[in-house]
């Protein structure tokens, strides 16, 4: 896993397309993180009560753990995870390579929309961050 250098242009570009595709549709918060749990980009509400650093570390670990579960059933990896809460829902998607996109949204946003938009974003975010 190589070190990663973020430029202001790259982060700005990624935030702009996330704002356009997800935040504009009422998704509350979106994080782009890497496999080590570092936050690469953070969009939307500054999530009172949500500790983004812990969320990123746990997400990376969760993906690591579920990829082991995937291997137990003959899959290479699970590319997305979704948890439904009473008020808030969370969707995790692997963006190819080592990056993971985390979207937190309420019941006013449909899961289908989030999935479609995340699929649309994946290639662009990869291109911007990984070149």
């Amino acid at each position, binding site marked *: *896993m*190589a*070190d*990663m*250098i*973020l*430029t*202001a*242009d790259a*982060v*700005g570009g990624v935030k702009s397309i996330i704002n356009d595709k997800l935040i504009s549709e009422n998704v509350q918060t979106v994080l782009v993180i*890497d*496999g*080590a*749990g*570092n936050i*690469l980009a953070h969009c939307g509400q500054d999530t009172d009560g949500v*500790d983004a*650093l*812990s969320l990123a*570390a*746990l997400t*990376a*670990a969760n993906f*690591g*753990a579920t990829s*082991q579960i995937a291997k137990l059933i003959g899959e290479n990896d699970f590319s997305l995870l979704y948890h439904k809460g009473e008020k808030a829902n969370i969707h995790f998607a692997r963006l190819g390579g080592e990056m993971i996109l985390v979207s937190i949204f309420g019941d006013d946003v449909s899961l289908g929309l989030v999935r479609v938009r995340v699929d649309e974003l994946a290639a662009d975010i990869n291109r911007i961050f990984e070149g």
Partner: protein
Amino acid sequence: MALIDLGRKEIHCKIVYYGAGRCGKTTNLLYIYNAMSDNDRGKMLTIDTKGDRTLFFDLLPLNLGKISGFDIRIQLYTVPGQVMYEATRKLVLKGVDGLVFVADPLKVRQERNIESLDDLRRNIADHGLDLKEMPLVLQYNKRDLCDTPVPTLSVEELEQDLNQVYQVPGFEAIATKGPGVFETLKEISKRTVNYVANKHLFNK
């Protein structure tokens, strides 16, 4: 992997405390957490502890000032030490930039220390890294036990067992009370930040 954010002028590094079960990895983090001001530390995350044993990992984010205008942000992690959690240890090591190996001085744990260091070397190699090339320091913890009748190992014996190959700084410590905890943190932080900064900021 280190993350260098040129826009926000931040360097993020990951340091993992490694060692056999019950050697005091989480105790190190707790002491650091309690001793640092709110401005310099984030929330300490301790996950799924069963009794007093770490099942997944602990995380403590710290701010360690500036170097060349870049804010240094360090994330301290621990691993579960028990032999059976090897897969979890490997997960936590993903993207590591610096390592502290915490050694237990109890004579009955001599083999465990050696096995754990070997387990670290193997797990690091599985991530495509060489432990000899990485920032590493040793911590000889629980030195207060040496004053009790419990059979313990001397620092020389621990050096002989663990530091022959790596020849890195070793610190005597009592993580429950504080001696050696910040000396260890200071040295591994310095080595890790130098390693990352030399690679990306100064050698251009």
